[in-house]
């Protein structure tokens, strides 16, 4: 055993048909990291939503722009980074999808789901331009019921 994380990486063109490739890699990474089925599904959904946002909002569907996805598997956690070539956004400044007036909105639930499903979520300017979203999920041993 080494302290080095196992790394899976993808470099994708901004096309929605590439989202499934990331979904698949997410399932592989999360099972290698030791998550149970429920958590694997949560991680897959978070990665999926983040990727769609990178393609759609970040790269504005411009197929000449790329999205990079990186999974790093540590002993105690999985870190996922999704980087696009867009201008970024302020995640503290998006409408709350649970607010009464937004409940029947047809969009605006992606970031909320990512935050619900992952332990850590942040958005930063990527070195070299673009935006990088980082999501972390910790492997926790379930508390034993008494």
């Amino acid at each position, binding site marked *: 055993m080494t302290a080095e994380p196992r790394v899976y990486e993808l470099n994708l063109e901004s096309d929605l048909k590439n*989202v499934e490739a990331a979904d698949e890699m997410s399932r592989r990474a999360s099972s290698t990291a030791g998550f149970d089925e429920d958590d694997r599904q949560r991680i897959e959904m978070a990665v*999926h939503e983040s990727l*769609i946002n990178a393609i759609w909002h970040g790269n504005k569907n411009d197929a000449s722009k790329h999205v990079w996805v990186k999974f790093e598997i540590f002993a105690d956690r999985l870190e996922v980074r999704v980087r696009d070539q867009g201008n970024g956004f302020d995640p503290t400044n998006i409408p709350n999808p649970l607010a009464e007036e937004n409940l029947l909105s*047809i969009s605006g639930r992606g970031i*909320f*789901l990512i935050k619900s499903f992952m332990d850590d979520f942040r958005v930063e300017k990527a070195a070299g331009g673009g935006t990088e979203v980082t999501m972390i999920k910790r492997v926790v041993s379930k508390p034993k019921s008494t």
Partner: protein
Amino acid sequence: MSMKASTRQVNSVTVIDVSGRITLGEGCAQLRQLIRDHLSKGNKHILVNLGDVSYIDSSGIGELVSAYTAVSNQGGQLKLLNLTKKVHDLLQITKLYTVFDVRDDEAEAISSFQKPAQA
């Protein structure tokens, strides 16, 4: 793997059996068109059976909400049948579980649409 949908008519109720993935793109577009077609034919009692849905993303959730709103605006009713645990949990955390009329027994769901002619 994408979305598949087939339609059955049970009494006054249009049952749409959906399977596969309801995700941004084809899956969502297909569902939207289907609902639109039924509404234009005057089918306003719609029961969407999600029992074989393997995956739904935030766009798929949005599409269900949009279908619900479209049917309600036409004076109809849209209900959901047979949620998997995954879809159930998603509707819970997005607070939509209480918005939708969710059923797990088809026969009861069908009869819940019948207008009470006499009380």
